[in-house]
């Protein structure tokens, strides 16, 4: 049992690092609009939609804090926006959107990304006030954020659709339940 836990923790750590590399590579290799896909958000949203666990939120915190090292904005700004968006999504999924239909998944993806960008804009604005920087949120930037939200939500829905088919069919409890019904 103890060894199993250690193996589990090591696997989680390796997968988290793989996710960081994947996200960074995706953003570097591809150009717009494909690079707008936020892989980290897709993965963690998919995990909390299927199985909300404390561990996922903690791993997300680690992944986002490591990614923070590669942003030019003040340390903590991006990760705070993304973690708060994930926590809000988690709360919404547990208390309001308890149904797991495709539409709900799509909307939760959209709401999370919009929340993330709203928090980001708010924090960037506060930072510009403190540091006396001039920032401009033009319609192009807002459109880019919206495209990012749309692409991420669509990808999340697609992955959810594919995975839900396989997970339902391959889960032993599901097979047991359906065979009993028959």
């Amino acid at each position, binding site marked *: 049992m103890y060894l199993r836990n250690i193996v589990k923790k090591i696997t989680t750590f390796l997968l988290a*690092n793989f996710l*960081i*590399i994947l996200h*960074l*590579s995706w*953003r*570097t*290799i591809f*150009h*717009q609009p494909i*690079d*707008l896909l936020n892989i980290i958000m897709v993965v963690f949203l998919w995990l909390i939609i299927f*199985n*909300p*666990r*404390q561990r996922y*939120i*903690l791993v997300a*915190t680690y992944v986002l*804090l*490591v*990614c923070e*090292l*590669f*942003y*030019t*904005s003040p*340390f*903590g700004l*991006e*990760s*705070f926006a993304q*973690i708060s968006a994930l*926590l809000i999504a*988690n*709360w919404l999924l*547990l208390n309001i959107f308890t149904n797991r239909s495709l539409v709900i998944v799509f909307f939760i993806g959209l709401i999370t990304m919009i929340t993330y960008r709203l928090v*980001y804009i708010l924090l960037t604005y506060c930072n510009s006030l403190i540091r006396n920087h001039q*920032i*401009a949120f*033009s319609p*192009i*930037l807002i459109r*880019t*954020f919206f495209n*990012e939200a749309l692409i991420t939500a669509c990808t999340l829905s697609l992955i959810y659709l594919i995975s839900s088919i396989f997970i339902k069919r391959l889960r032993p409890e599901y097979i047991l339940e359906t065979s009993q019904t028959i």
Partner: protein
Amino acid sequence: MRYYSFKKTYLLVIGIFFSIIFLHYLGILNFIENKISDTVVLALRPITTKFQNNTKANLCPNTTTTPINDQSIIKNKILEQENFELKNQLNFKKHSSSTIITAEIVAKNLDTADQIIILNRGSNDGIKNDQPVIYGDGILIGKIIKLENNLSFARVLSDNQSKIAATILNSDHSLGVIEGGFGLSIKMTFIPRNENIIIGDEIITSGLEIGIPRGLIIGKVAAVENESYQPFQQAIITPAVDYEKINFVGVLSTQ
């Protein structure tokens, strides 16, 4: 489904997050952060280099006559491209009085709101903030904005927050400011309305900005917008190089 109490999780995440932020700003985590970023870059470099170069080799028009699945030909083309970039930089080095630190681009555009390139050289190599980043024979790419021990972050000219003083090589020697347009365009603003700009005129750095020498190439005028109700005219610029297709750059040490 098992129900987990998330109140504890929320508090734990908030606690961990703010502790790390606090320790970061105190500078206690510097060593760990540098080690992590070095390791990530080490893992990232082979992937991005392979994919970017493969894309370039596939896009290269000469490859239509040769089979692109031949790995040795692709490898040669990649080396040819790198050789060309470094030779151009060496050529610039001969004529320039400033020192140039050659760096490789390891990652790009992490945030969709910014146009940033990450270089594999940092403060340990003598790079400082606000130093100009050039490509080949003196083409300005951007400016250093953030430094780590072994990494540096440069803001590309097409970034919406990028502003560089420039001059047009026309009869009036028009002065203006080069501004980026969210990675989509570059324009030169604050050009007096009475000055004559012709499409195709070359644009260089004016040398009015501290740390950026005069004469670095920026691009050419592609279109001029001179409206009667505007106090200044502006020019849309075609950059001298496609910022997406660069592997090696040089950081100009001007101090």
